[in-house]
């Protein structure tokens, strides 16, 4: 057996050397195994504490790592290095091509582990109160740990196949968590849908990997990026000269990989699973469908960004898909009434921002602004969006409904939730000082310098964002107070400390995250970037956002019939947006009508009647012939002798005249 290969460079970045590094993903895995096997029986309510403790340790380790990377050892000659901290061969196909399990530390992965573990910790704590009394409490924490493990593994991947594996694992943990309330048919359907849609996208990812790996002759990110970005390398010449249907194999490979990313990140037209995924417990939505898993697609493109940057076509696809998704989702979000769905569409919209920001970016230096902005937005978005979801969760916890009409006037009942939610809304709307403002400005700036059309879309969407977020905010916390009064009467409180504290912590983050100098740390080439806010440039988006807020307060702050009137006057347009542009229906048509009826059913029918029928027919034919020739054995002696003689004579004739 070949020994496990350990390649440690600058191991002291990681707490306690490589062991500590490996602990970051493996601790949640261990928690998953322990809770999964024994949780039901032996832990029951202690499971939550155990899971939270383990994730707390992981968070501390991540912070330690981030500190050491960004402040102590990560930078060599002013450039943040890509450090392979741990690597062992998992499956070797040939000396060059192997799937490795490793930990790679570079700005984006270090940033991501911080985000993932921190948000995960918040969600763990929140769930202690939120999921209390749930029958499958231990299982819930097991799944959360599994997800955390997979997500950490994903961001730390050193190998494109490793990322694919964890990609699938986050998919399945998402599946398990969405379907957590398995006795609800809608939850089951949603989990199924989420998994299948992303699986379909992953097909693209897989084929993309095959293409890239074949031409570059490696699966290792470092080597792959090296080979496919150096114009003179034979691999590069090979992959760009080979073409299929008019596009080079590089474009194909990257586009296919991007399809995988688009699936996971709910980009149009593969976004249909995300709104449905809100069937899962709300903290799960906060963790998976807001802050971490859904940005995996962005992360993937960022990870391969050097390669993307040499291929304009692929990058354009990324940009336009992102922009389209951002706008589309924003429009749909304005019409939805389920608060979690609104948040889901807003997530999709924000990820659209990140995507197109990457798409308009170039590699290196100032040109890499979009890359930086995208990562920045990813960072800030994680906080305010998980905060929004947790806030929504707290609301749902009290109201026991997802529908806006069941809410209203909750600001008195739930003051902390109200304040934190407001902060988050301001952040996402891009109001200055709040974190979202900084990242969104960078994105729009990058777009402005590179693609005016996308810039316009971005600005438009940012106005819409402010509108629908505040529509949400007002509908929940202001508007009619009937429901709130009713709840007050029955003595409902805001919830336990475990519910409140995460909200507060996240609110602080959402407020302050914008001041984190991401530009100094996370850039396309590792060289720190200086950014500054251009007041003049910011005016338009901020004004638009304020307008959106104003419109929302006009329409939704108090109970009135104006929204209905507007919806009515928009008629078909409103309906189209409300029905999410009928994309679900189109999918349904394709799957149910075309795949099931035109492929599945015929295949089953053919198998039963034609292929199997052939076999049965063969047997039946034999029986038929047997029946047919039974007359030979007539029972009459004279016939027998006649056949006997005839046979002999025939044999003689054949032999004498034909075979001689």
């Amino acid at each position, binding site marked *: 057996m070949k020994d496990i290969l350990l390649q440690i460079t600058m191991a002291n970045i990681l707490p306690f050397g490589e062991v500590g590094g490996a602990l970051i993903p493996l601790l949640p895995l261990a928690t998953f195994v322990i809770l999964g096997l024994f949780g039901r029986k032996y832990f029951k309510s202690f499971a939550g504490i155990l899971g939270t403790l383990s994730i707390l340790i992981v968070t501390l380790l991540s912070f330690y790592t981030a500190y050491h990377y960004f402040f102590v050892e990560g930078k060599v000659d002013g450039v943040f290095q890509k450090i392979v901290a741990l690597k062992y061969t998992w499956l070797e196909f040939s000396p060059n091509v192997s799937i490795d399990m490793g930990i790679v530390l570079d700005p984006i992965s270090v940033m991501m582990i911080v985000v993932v573990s921190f948000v995960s910790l918040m969600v763990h704590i929140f769930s202690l109160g939120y999921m209390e009394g749930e029958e499958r409490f231990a299982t819930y924490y097991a799944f959360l740990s599994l997800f955390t493990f997979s997500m950490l593994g994903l961001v730390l991947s050193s190998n494109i196949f490793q990322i694919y594996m964890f990609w699938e694992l986050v998919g399945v943990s998402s599946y398990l968590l969405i379907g957590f309330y398995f006795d609800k048919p809608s939850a089951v359907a949603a989990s199924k849908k989420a998994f299948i849609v992303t699986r379909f996208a992953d097909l693209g990812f897989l084929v993309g990997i095959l293409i890239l790996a074949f031409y570059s002759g490696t699966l290792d990110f470092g080597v792959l990026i090296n080979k496919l970005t150096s114009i003179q390398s034979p691999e590069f010449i090979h992959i760009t000269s080979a073409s299929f249907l008019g596009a080079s194999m590089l474009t194909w490979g990257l586009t296919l990989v991007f399809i995988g990313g688009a699936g996971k990140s709910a980009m149009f037209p593969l976004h249909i699973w995300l709104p449905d995924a809100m069937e899962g417990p709300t903290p799960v939505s906060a963790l998976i469908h807001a802050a971490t898993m859904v940005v995996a697609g962005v992360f993937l493109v960022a990870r391969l960004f050097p390669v993307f940057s040499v291929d304009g076509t692929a990058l354009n696809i990324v940009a336009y898909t992102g922009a389209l998704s951002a706008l589309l989702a924003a429009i749909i979000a304005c019409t939805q009434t389920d608060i979690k769905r609104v948040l889901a569409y807003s997530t999709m919209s924000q990820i659209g921002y990140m995507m197109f920001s990457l798409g308009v970016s170039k590699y290196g230096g100032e040109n890499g602004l979009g890359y930086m902005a995208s990562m920045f937005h990813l960072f800030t978005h994680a906080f305010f969006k998980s905060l929004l979801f947790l806030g929504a969760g707290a609301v749902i916890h009290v109201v026991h409904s997802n529908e806006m009409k069941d809410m209203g006037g909750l600001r008195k009942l739930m003051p902390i939730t109200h304040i934190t939610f407001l902060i988050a809304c301001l952040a996402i709307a891009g109001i200055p000082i709040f974190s979202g403002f900084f990242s969104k400005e960078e994105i729009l700036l990058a777009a402005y310098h590179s693609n005016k059309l996308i810039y316009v879309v971005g600005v438009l969407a940012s106005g819409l964002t402010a509108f629908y977020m505040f529509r949400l905010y007002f509908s929940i916390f202001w508007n009619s107070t009937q429901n709130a009064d009713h709840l007050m009467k029955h003595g409902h409180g805001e919830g336990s400390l475990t519910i409140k504290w995460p909200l507060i912590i996240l609110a602080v983050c959402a407020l302050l995250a914008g001041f984190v100098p991401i530009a100094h740390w996370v850039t396309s080439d590792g060289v720190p970037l200086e950014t500054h806010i251009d007041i003049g440039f910011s005016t338009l988006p901020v004004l638009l956002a304020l307008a959106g807020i104003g419109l929302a307060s006009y329409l939704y702050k108090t109970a009135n019939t104006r929204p209905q009137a507007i919806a009515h006057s928009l008629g078909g347009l409103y309906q189209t947006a409300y029905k999410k542009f009928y994309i679900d229906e189109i999918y349904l048509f394709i799957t149910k009508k075309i795949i099931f009826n035109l492929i599945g059913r015929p295949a089953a029918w053919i198998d039963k009647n034609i292929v199997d029928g052939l076999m049965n027919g063969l*047997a039946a034919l*034999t*029986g038929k*012939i*047997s*029946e047919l*020739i*039974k007359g*030979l*054995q007539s*029972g009459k*002696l004279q*016939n*027998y*002798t006649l*056949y*006997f*003689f*005839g*046979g*002999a004579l025939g*044999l*003689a004739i*054949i*032999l*004498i005249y034909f*075979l*001689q």
Partner: protein
Amino acid sequence: MGTDFLILMKQEWMVIAIIFILMFIKIGSNEWKNERILNLVNILLLINFILGLFWNQEGTLFNEMYKTNPLIVAEKNILSLGTYIIALQAYSWLKNHQHVLEFYILLLSTLVGMFFMISAGNLLMFYLGLELSSIPLAAIANFDLEKRKSSEAAFKFIISSAFSSGLLLFGISLIYGLTGTLTFTELSQHLNGNPLEIFAFVLFIAGFGFKISAVPFHLWTADVYEGAPVSVTSYLSVISKGAVLFVFVSILYTVFKPIAITWYNILFILSVLTMIIGNLFAIRQQNLKRFLAFSSIAQVGFILVGISGASREGSASVVYFVLIYVFSNLGAFGVVGLVSALSGKENIDDYKSFYKNNPLLSWVLAISLFSLAGIPPTAGFFGKFFLLISGAGQGNYLLITIAALNMIVSLYYYLKVIKAIFMDPNDNPIEKLAIPASPKLALFICVAGIVLTGLMSYVYEYIYSLATSF
């Protein structure tokens, strides 16, 4: 000369001695009980078989009319063993029969006839042996005197047999006319393959075809097998057929070697026809005896494939297969005969849920059928494999493919019986049968033979060492 005469023909003498002992008993006293006679006969046949294994010599007698060599001795021993098993199995049937002694006298006469036939070095001797082995058989085919089917079977058998000897003789007479000799060793030097000779040869082969029931000379087989008593049927299907096959191989391989191409073509046609027709008819049978008749026809098809190999492997594998066939077919017939004698049921439908009350018999029948179907680890697998491998030695893979596909068809009907025994429900399955000791012994021998003959390669290697090279 005198001692040679006694020693070389030792096996014949022993059987003749048994016949005489039985005749003395018949003449001397009528008081003997059936059981006593049956036990005596069984012991005598066992002694005959054991003695047949030792003190054998090689040589010729009567101006090469009679010859013997280790292979022939081995073949005769196989037949003796088979006869012994059949005698054991006949116990339940003959226990209450009036004419036990006559049965054995006639039966053993045919055995003597076969011995002479195998040892024949001359067409006349061959003919005499053949007739001696078939005419008494017709008589014992009618041994259930009062049964209509039995008489009909015997009648069909004797007339077909006479007719086939007529053709055979006509062929022999023409061969004689063309070559002027009847001795095997001289015959082979005079053959040159002209059309008349081929015509004569075809008639000659037709005679053989009748005996081994190759299609299209097989039509009597099923009727006779069904009508005759089970013991006679098993004797016909195993011993009589086996003996003729032994002769057939040696005559083709030695006497008719000069016209090998001709008989290769004949064997090709016959084997394909035999396999296909045998199988197609076997599929639709309900009566187990009739079913086994057709299955044995199909088996002959495979044997013909083996013979067509025209090699030392060919002759060895035919002898080997016949040995295995003795065990397998007698195992099957043994069970069928027992059930028929004790409960009177012969149809496949009657065997539904047979396993419920008679697990032992079921397994014996199943193992025998598996062996007939050629399923490992039973010996039948090896037998068939070697037959087909020697057949493939000629490079005719079409024949092998046809044979292999026919094995599937044959498997189907064997499995149909297995299915009835083990799987099909039946409200009224056959009661638990009390099996007398001697049939039990017979079945044990059969099963042991089926299991061991294949796995112990020694048996095949021994036969191979005896076999004549082509």
